[in-house]
């Protein structure tokens, strides 16, 4: 058995020709992040990335909430792979962390249980007449940004630094359980000290906070959030993380997983509403950014093109700290160019 120390966990990340699968949650809650990722990869790095309109859910949330059998999930994923093969790609890039974990799980299952692979091929053929190839690489978008973090740094207009003091900002990184814990060997820096977000933050001038509950789950829990009656589990787990990070005074939280981003943002709001408690000194809450938003901000993209207006915890105090200019008027602009009144909501 090969034994590696976390600093030596590396991973092969393809350097071009990506086939991008959007995430149900990312699209719904932070659509600007996916737009931003495509801009970074396509426009800034000049890579080929396919945004295929035919793609669809991997069923991940349905699978982990136990309403979709594993056979069905495997075959749906096989269809996604079939669409990829059709377009001539080999590098599957799922935006969602649950997809990333599940796709790896399915491919690993096929390696150990060839009969499951055969059954999936038969099911897909029978249902759709399709065939498929297993991707050469399953890469999460954060891996790609991490891989090109030095190239991106050269193009960046800002650093993760307090413009007034010149001090690095203090950053909590939250990696997402299904990115790091399902297949620790597929993670830069392993499950215990994943380096993918930490590597970006440190490369771009910030300081990563190592707090006791760093590895703890945000508390999505699938059925625990999806059912209104169960949401206490979800908020309790997020709260546990907030309380653990609070003494370190983080300037912001950067997240990998679409679900975690939303929960760490919304549960701060809920806790504030319920108890008046905020986890920063100013009473704003700790801003939560996706890694796409963080990268886009430092590259100088307009914060309102990134979608920061969709965060319940206002990002403006963070923009001020870094010294990123923004136009207050544009925050509430719609596609049609008119201001969509926020009052009353």
């Amino acid at each position, binding site marked *: 058995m090969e034994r590696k120390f976390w600093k030596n966990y590396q991973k092969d990340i393809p350097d071009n020709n990506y086939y991008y699968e959007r995430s149900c949650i990312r699209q719904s809650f932070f659509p600007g992040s996916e737009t931003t990722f495509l801009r970074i990869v396509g426009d800034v790095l000049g890579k080929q990335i396919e945004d295929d309109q035919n793609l669809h859910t991997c069923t991940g949330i349905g699978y982990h909430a136990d309403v979709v059998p594993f056979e069905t999930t495997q075959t749906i994923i096989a269809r996604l792979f079939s669409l990829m093969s059709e377009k001539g790609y080999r590098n599957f890039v799922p935006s969602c962390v649950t997809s990333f974990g599940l796709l790896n799980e399915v491919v690993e299952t096929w390696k150990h249980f060839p009969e499951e692979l055969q059954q999936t091929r038969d099911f897909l053929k029978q249902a759709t007449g399709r065939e498929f190839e297993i991707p050469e690489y399953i890469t999460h978008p954060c891996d790609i940004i991490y891989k090109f973090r030095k190239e991106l740094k050269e193009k960046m207009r800002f650093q993760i630094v307090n413009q007034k003091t010149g001090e690095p900002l203090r950053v909590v990184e939250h990696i997402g359980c299904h990115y790091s814990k399902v297949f620790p060997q597929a993670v830069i820096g392993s499950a215990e000290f994943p380096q993918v977000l930490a590597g970006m933050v440190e490369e771009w001038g910030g300081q990563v906070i*190592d707090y006791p509950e760093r590895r703890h789950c945000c508390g999505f829990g699938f059925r625990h959030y999806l059912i209104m009656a169960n949401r206490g589990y979800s908020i309790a787990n997020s709260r546990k993380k907030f309380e653990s990070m609070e003494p370190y005074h983080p300037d912001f939280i950067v997240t990998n997983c679409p679900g975690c981003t939303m929960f760490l943002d919304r549960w701060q709001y809920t806790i504030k509403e319920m108890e008046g408690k905020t986890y920063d000194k100013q009473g704003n809450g700790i801003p939560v950014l996706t890694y796409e938003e963080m990268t886009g901000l430092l590259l100088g993209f307009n914060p309102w093109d990134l979608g920061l207006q969709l965060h319940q915890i206002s990002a403006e105090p963070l923009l001020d700290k870094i010294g990123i200019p923004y136009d207050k008027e544009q925050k509430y602009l719609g596609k049609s160019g008119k201001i969509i009144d926020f009052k009353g909501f």
Partner: protein
Amino acid sequence: MEKIIYTDIAVIGAGPTGIVAAYNLARLGYKVSLFEKEESLGGNILKTYKLFPNFQSSNELLQLFGEMIVVNNLSLQTGVTVTNIRKDNNHWISTTNKGETIVSKAVLMATGFKPFDAHYKEEYGYGIYNGVITSLEFEKMLKCGEIYGSNGITPEKIAILNCVGSRDAKVGNNYCSRVCCINAVKFGIEIKEILPKAEVYCFYMDLRMTGQFYEELYRKSQQEYGVNYIRGKISEASQTADNRIQLKAEDTLLRLPIKMTVDLLILMIGIEASESTKELSAQTGIMGEYGFAKSHSLLKADNHTIHPGLFIAGTCKRPFTYPETVADARAAVVEIQHYLENKT
């Protein structure tokens, strides 16, 4: 210029096994050449303070070793690594990193073990958090007579964790290292003797008190010293804002997850085949599971290997306690004597 040494037996490794075997072979009148890769003899005993279960001082043993090696017929070379052994007709040829060639009638491998590298159990943050140390580092503290925690001050709460690198498929070691359970009991008592007010928590999966006086020592540590035992393996250690160590485990007897903050976490690191053991076993085709040297027959010829004239003893074979390894060394002496007298 190449130097050739002719001898009856080449003994590789001057830890307890090698020394006891070499000493007894020499007393039987055989010419023995003993090689030690380190500058000092004593092997892993050098890293300890007192031995379980009777708190025998390691220094006393080392002194005894020093006296044993002055016996007639025995020549010791330290700072010399045997890099290769091979059979040539009826002789064994060993070569060292100093360019020497040793021609002998028999070879005894006593190349011992190496402690598990705790860095590989990443969830305990060894090498990252000051408050997380290995059992060998704790022995050093005991030698100096001073125990200090993560903040450099006297700890009030100390946790000891068994099975670090043992019984763990995640690091590829499915076996039990045999010595850690009782060593942890010994630590509990040693801590309480130096720091009577400190709270000590020993985390374990099974306490294997198999040796003579072990169970009694375990009871004494609970009854007289107030050491706490929690049945459950620590799942992770992380550093708190005030630089202490937060632990998560399950008290499996109460069936409840527990969180505890301590000033010092001692990892009881297990036993692995040493690099020399692995290298020489691989060369001679006697490597068994987990890189340990494999004997010809566990129940019938446990000091023999598949090669006549190549013998093995001690922790190069598997984890042993000190009395066991010394007994094994003496057993090897008898087998070697039989071999040299053409009786087997």
